[in-house]
């Protein structure tokens, strides 16, 4: 990396005042008018490009959940004048790495290439997104793989729990459907659905691009045109309504004969641009965020040995927001685990955190931010997400001061909003008899 990104990261670590300019991240507009963000750095002879078309699996037609996901598996299975094997061999000859992935609200693409092959790599991605073939035998091959994956997960308790939980919360809203669909919905998807998805979703007006690596600004501008200028000007997306979440908390038990019971819990969250989102983010961290120090980790794992892992997260979407969490424990102690989780949620809703907990959480969240920026791909991913979430090109400079500004009253207010009625929405997958006998 050049000295400039190093400088802004160093200043991030200083935690307090960020005087670094955003000069390290360049907003580049191509001759053809396509915009991308770039961090130029020639330390390693690589380029990482990440891009997204907003829309995603929420654009799947009704009754055909899994279209976006299926498209993501088919873009390298034949494009332009190459069939699947020709395309994939070409990619291997160039030693490029690429990936396509359907999210709920966006369709993601990723390319990593050695500097020496940038143009040829870009050409491959260009034809994958602008002229996918969806040849019949490729469609059936990928359908077969998706169906075998779905079949493999039929009795997987994690999959059962998360699908049931989302369905219970969102009902008929597109978010209630699994991204990879169901065995039935995937069987219904036709070639015309795939073609329609690609032509409606891959356009220039819903495109975000970020790149990091061995390329100049000028060359990056040309790259943007080379990769994306063949796409239509505008996407034609269906309007996705704001989701109305299940009105009341629930506790559903799905009786399944598994050695370990899986519990999915959570409830309504806060939208990304809600003024209380950042306080809620801090709150989530100290309640059940990913470190070995959260309240739930301490109560469930450290004090009682109930589970290997327990965690919570915020899940803001474009048309809804969730707070979620999960734990897996042996059947006889599932009720006890759930009782503790309920108590901890109620306790933090009533009392909020201590000042020391808040300080520790903030210190962690600020101090760990630079760890998100230590590979080209990770930096590109951050820049892309910042664009999608419309946080502004200076967000990296501002982010830690947003965390710093969170007060104990902010966290209490966020807790009040997240856990208003104190009762999470719960889906339990395990042996019902063990659960009922365990009391808790």
């Amino acid at each position, binding site marked *: 990396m050049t000295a400039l*990104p190093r400088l802004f990261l160093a200043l991030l670590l200083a935690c307090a005042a960020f005087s670094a300019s955003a000069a390290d991240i360049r907003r580049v507009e191509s001759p053809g008018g396509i915009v991308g963000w770039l961090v130029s750095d020639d330390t390693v002879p*690589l380029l990482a490009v990440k891009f997204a078309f907003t829309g995603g699996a929420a654009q799947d037609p009704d009754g055909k959940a899994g279209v976006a996901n299926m498209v993501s598996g088919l873009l390298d299975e034949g494009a332009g004048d190459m069939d699947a094997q020709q395309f994939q061999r070409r990619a291997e000859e160039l030693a490029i790495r690429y990936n396509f992935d359907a999210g709920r609200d966006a369709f993601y693409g990723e390319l990593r290439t050695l500097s020496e092959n940038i143009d040829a790599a870009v050409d491959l991605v260009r034809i994958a997104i602008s002229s996918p073939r969806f040849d019949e035998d490729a469609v059936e091959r990928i359908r077969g793989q998706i169906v075998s994956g779905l079949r493999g997960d039929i009795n997987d*308790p994690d999959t059962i729990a998360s699908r049931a939980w989302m369905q219970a919360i969102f009902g008929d809203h597109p978010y209630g459907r699994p991204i990879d669909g169901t065995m039935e919905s995937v069987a219904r998807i036709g070639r015309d659905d795939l073609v329609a998805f690609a032509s409606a979703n891959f356009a220039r007006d819903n495109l975000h691009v970020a790149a990091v690596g061995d390329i100049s600004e000028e060359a990056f501008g040309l790259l943007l045109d080379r990769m994306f200028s063949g796409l239509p000007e505008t996407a034609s997306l269906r309007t996705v309504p704001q989701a109305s979440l299940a009105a009341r908390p629930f506790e559903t038990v799905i009786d399944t004969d598994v050695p370990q019971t899986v519990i999915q819990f959570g409830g309504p969250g806060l939208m990304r641009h809600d003024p209380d989102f950042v306080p809620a983010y801090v709150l989530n961290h100290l309640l059940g965020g990913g470190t*070995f120090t959260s309240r739930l980790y301490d109560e469930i794992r450290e004090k*009682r040995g109930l589970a290997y892992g327990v*965690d919570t*997260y915020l899940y803001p979407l474009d048309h809804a927001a969730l707070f979620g969490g999960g734990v*897996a424990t042996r059947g006889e102690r599932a009720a006890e685990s759930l009782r503790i989780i309920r108590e901890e949620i109620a306790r933090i809703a009533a009392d909020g955190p201590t000042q020391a907990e808040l300080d520790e959480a903030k210190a962690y969240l600020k101090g*760990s931010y630079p760890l998100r920026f*230590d590979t080209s791909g990770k930096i590109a991913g951050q820049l892309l997400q910042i664009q999608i979430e419309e946080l502004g090109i200076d967000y990296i400079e501002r982010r830690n001061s947003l965390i710093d500004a969170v007060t104990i009253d902010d966290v209490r207010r966020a807790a009040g909003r997240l856990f208003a009625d104190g009762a999470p929405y719960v889906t339990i997958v395990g042996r019902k008899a063990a659960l009922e006998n365990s009391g808790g």
Partner: protein
Amino acid sequence: MRRRPAAQCARLALLAVALLFATLAPRLAAAADVGHFFLDNGLEVVVVPDHRSPVVTHMIWYKVGSADEEPGKAGVAHFLEHLLFKGTPKHPGSSFSDTVAAIGGSENAFTSYDYTAYYQRVAREHLPLVMEMEADRMTNLILTDDVVARERDVVLEERRSRVENDPGSKLGEVLDATFYLEHPYGRPVIGWMQEIEALDREDALDVYTRYYTPNNAVLVVAGDVEPDEVRALAARTYGEVARRADPPPRIRRAEPDVDAERRVLLRDPSTEQESLRREYHVPSYTTAEPGVAEALDVLGEAFGGGATSRLYRRLVVERKLAAGAGGYYQASALDDTAFHLYAVPADGVDLATLEKAMDEEVADLVANGLDADDIERAKRNIIAEAVYARDSQSAMARIYGTALTTGSTVEAVEGWADAIRAVTPEDVDKAARDWLRIGRSATGWLVRQAPKEPS
């Protein structure tokens, strides 16, 4: 929806990571200016500078894994790994993790067959602190029976999550146990349920006092630091830790050279999607004659790596018998290792038909070899992975750590890309002929068993 990142909040990324890096391990070009030296107490140190961001990855690797365990104590190396977070007189209780969190660091640990490793990723200025704490817990761990009992429950839950709830993992365990008749690679790293249940404080401390000593460890620091800085810091921290043991030579029970095809059938009521796996006995990078491991690496990529590989092309694309198929060489191991094949049948195809087709493809490979351009493409991709690895300080740290705890050397890591370049089509074809022999294999089927009728 987002799957719960259970593995991320774990103190162990057991099999997935171990396997991933076992296959990736030797694959990199030399990074610039790697430092390599020993402290007086025998601690080996590797420093991989990467100044692109002000972050360091600090790892300590111990040359002890599940294959070093006493019979009947399966899982104790991994159990000890969990217990290493339980405190010392200087950093009691959870203060290790509390401190790492307070400085915004991320941390974890993992155990494999040949090593146990601990790491923190922190801002560069906190490197001295994590070195001090890690050196402290190398010999000063305090364990109470109460803490040990609770953590044993956690490990049992971990086993339920990773294995008991997952039929594919159960098959893998039993297949390995069948594949290795004597060698301890046949025992699961996490341990068997009933042996974990019986592990106690003494068992854990026995491994600790025998293997956790500077002369049995490798320190790897990658990131925004220079070798000289690490040398000075290491002298002040790890350098103060006295040798406390001379670990025994790592001689494990050797496999008898039986000529017998072994088979495992797991009938599982929760399995809807059937699949099959096969393992062949092969030498590792450490045990192979010169050039043989490299040839197996290229063979794994060309025959089984991804959608252009021979096996995928034939079984999935052309014959349409499989939904997925592939294979890989488990490259890094102290002792002889495995070459893996797997396949998932297409809708309506039974496992017998699929296995017969796989056998035909292996027979064709052995008789006729691979196309030269397939081999070239495979070599190019393996070598490119070495360049991609340089983008990640964590990946670089793991590559060196894996190599040095499985009997390889810094020089071998740095010369690895050239060694792959030197592989000829004849080498690859010979590797297939020499090693893909059914009498040296085990095959496992995961099959559906109709649930019992309620009585």
